């Protein structure tokens, strides 16, 4: 087998990726190849140094320093209003607006309230109520067949 192929197997062995069945053959090659022996020795030296570094103990001081350094509550973006949401509020608002406009623009379509006259003319409520009654008199006469004079 060419040396490059052996070297690939040695690298796989060092990475822990070599199938178990190939290990003894690779170990045998390493014992007779100084290049591959150096490859393993260098990796093993570094591996030993790296693995000797113990995991630090849990530190509340570290946790506190991270928490102090965290940015405070992030500003939440304003939710954008979708078409459905827009229609949900726009429809009743539009209807309310139209109703208000109709009430102001065409007040004569129904009987005027006595209190409207009071506000507009400044006369006494009693007088206005009597006036309104007189205005309606012909309607009552039509309905019940009795004239105001009869009363």
């Amino acid at each position, binding site marked *: 087998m060419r040396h490059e192929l052996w070297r690939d197997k040695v*690298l796989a062995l060092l990475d822990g990726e070599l199938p178990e069945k190939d290990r003894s053959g690779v170990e045998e090659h390493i014992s007779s190849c100084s290049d591959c022996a*150096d490859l393993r020795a*260098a990796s093993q*030296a570094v591996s030993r*140094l*790296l693995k000797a*570094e113990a995991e*630090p103990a*849990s530190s509340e001081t*570290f946790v506190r320093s991270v928490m102090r350094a965290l940015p405070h509550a992030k500003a939440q973006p304003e939710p954008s209003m979708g078409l459905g949401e827009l229609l949900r509020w726009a429809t009743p608002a539009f209807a309310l607006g139209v109703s208000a406009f109709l009430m102001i623009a065409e007040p004569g379509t129904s009987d005027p309230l006595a209190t409207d006259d009071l506000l507009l003319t400044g006369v006494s409520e009693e007088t206005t109520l009597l006036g309104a009654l007189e205005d309606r008199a012909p309607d009552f006469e039509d309905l019940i067949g009795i004239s105001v004079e009869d009363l």
Partner: protein
Amino acid sequence: MAGDRAAYADLVRRHHPRVLRLCLSLLGRPADAEDAAQTAFIKAYERLDSFRGEASFATWLHRIAANVCLDLLRKSAREKADSLEVLEASQTRAWRRATAGPDEAAEPARRRDLLENILGPLSPEYRLALTLKEVQGLTYEEIAVELGWTLDSVKARLRRARLKLAENMRHFKDSPDVQKEKGS
């Protein structure tokens, strides 16, 4: 979750020893490692909304920490100003001690100094791949997921890292300085 600081404190409490160890293995100096780990936790908090749960939280967090360390290693590599002679002398000493036996690496500060001299000449990416393999014992696939690299890229970087280490070890072990010490 973004605003839940108490829950995040629990996450920091649970994961920081492993993140600190990774940073320490990559950067060498405890103060640098602590700064990098803190930066990683702050970045993770700021990006919590982007955590999709495709990988575990630990894997996602380690990727952030690894990238923070990678940036620092690249910056440090650009700023190195030691002369070639000084670098050669320190690497010669480091390889001699590292291959002498376990006792040479017993003291943490000394061990980190050896590692810095031995791994310093590697590119930051090679160093990161090797550290994840050796410290965390990850498979090629796990390293690829943790770093967001392709599988081929992980294999190639590990291969080049190990070959470069072997080349350096041969060079420095056989340097006249060491030969002289051996003879004396």
